[in-house]
């Protein structure tokens, strides 16, 4: 377990200290959301209607943006080979890296989302639900993304292949995440959506480390 936490701490400090990766992701997130009022016009009715979806889509794209460096640097530098040889099972190593990725990107995205919700004029209930849905849903984004990132290691035009692979798989969290906020405006059905979103995250937690580790093994072969 010491190796697991060591890897987690290493990845986290690299993400936080190296060139402000978290800052870049957050900057992209904010800018992407801010673009929409310019595109669809500043009427608050429209913005309130599409706001949750916009924030969620922007969060997906921001998470996608940071995925290519999940394994890439370690793959180029050879640390991944050492990880595969170490006593720590590769599945746990993937889990540690995903956890670090989530703390460095998913969690900040969720924390800053209430601010963006104000920009698109969401109500208090919707803001709370948006925050909760991102908090529950972003782990799935990191985990599902890790599979695609591992699969596309060493590919030509990696980032394009990566987005082609990962965006279709992001559709279920998007549907339930944005759906929860939409329902919370009208009644109290949001709980069901959040539970399904949590189920997706838990399923990803159970399944994705295995798939990512399998993909990494064949990449290192």
């Amino acid at each position, binding site marked *: 377990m010491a190796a697991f936490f060591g890897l987690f701490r290493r990845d986290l400090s690299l993400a936080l200290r190296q060139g402000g990766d978290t800052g870049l992701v957050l900057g992209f997130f904010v800018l992407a959301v801010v673009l929409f009022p310019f595109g669809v016009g500043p009427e608050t009715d429209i913005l309130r209607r599409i706001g949750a979806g916009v924030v969620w889509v922007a969060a997906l794209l921001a998470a996608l943006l940071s995925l290519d460096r999940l394994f890439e640097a370690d793959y180029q530098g050879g640390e991944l080979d050492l990880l595969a040889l170490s006593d720590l099972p590769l599945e746990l190593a993937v889990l540690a890296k995903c956890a670090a990725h989530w703390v460095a990107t998913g969690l900040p995205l969720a924390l800053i989302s209430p601010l963006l919700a104000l920009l698109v004029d969401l109500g208090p209930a919707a803001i709370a639900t948006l925050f909760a849905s991102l908090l529950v849903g972003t782990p799935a984004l990191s985990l599902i993304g890790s599979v695609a990132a591992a699969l596309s290691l060493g590919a030509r*035009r990696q980032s394009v292949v990566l987005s082609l692979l990962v*965006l279709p798989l992001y559709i279920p969290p998007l549907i339930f995440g944005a759906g929860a906020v939409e329902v919370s405006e009208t009644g109290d059905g949001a709980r069901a959506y959040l539970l399904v979103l949590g189920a997706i995250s838990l399923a990803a937690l159970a399944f994705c480390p295995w798939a990512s580790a399998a993909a990494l093994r064949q990449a290192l072969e």
Partner: protein
Amino acid sequence: MINWLANPARFMRLSATTLRWCSWAAVVVITVGLFWSLVVAPPDYQQGDTVRIMYVHVPAAWMALSIYLFMAVASAVALVWRHPLAEVAARAAAPVGATFTFVCLATGSLWGRPMWGAWWVWDARLTSVLVLFFLYLGYVALVNAFDDPSRGGRAGAVLALVGVVNLPIIKFSVDWWNTLHQPASVMRVDGPSIAISMLAPLLIMAVGFTLLFAVLLMLRMRTALNERKAMALRLNAGVAAPRQAEHEGAVSAHTAIS
């Protein structure tokens, strides 16, 4: 059987005759099926002649799902037993499956326009089939994205297995969510709820599409194997094509770095 087929030369011999028979069978069955479904079968009492779209749409949808399942099984065989032909088969099946998925989406759109009044609705069945289409495209993109073809094949195999989670979602989407798309009327526990005069041509078309898939699959696998052989011959003869030379250059540069 699976080990016996692992020899590419044996596969080439076997598929040469099978391919001829399957091609003729596909032509005959699809012709009969189209004639039956477009001319003989009765129009629907509500939908009129529009229902004839079903005879292409539904078998295409079945093919879209079963080809993905075929790819997933072939990928599992390729990953577990390192079966040389399974990887070729999965790779060859992907564009065919993507095309069937596209046919399913396009005919569904044409059918939806007069029946639902919209070319496209975002209900669960349609969305999940669209995701299947993107999965096919992602698979093709990933498989072709590597300089080393076998690396692409292995990455694609893992992706195909990951994508299997989408299949039950597609199958049961009409039961889980209250969708505009109608629920299953052929593959039901209590027997099909569709009249025999419509079921017969539908099943004939399904058999025809399956034969067509078998023909295209064998054709593409034979082409892939021949291509591989041609490349090996060219490399042996020492007259590597410019593209190959470039690849080798990239590979040796990579080894030099690592």
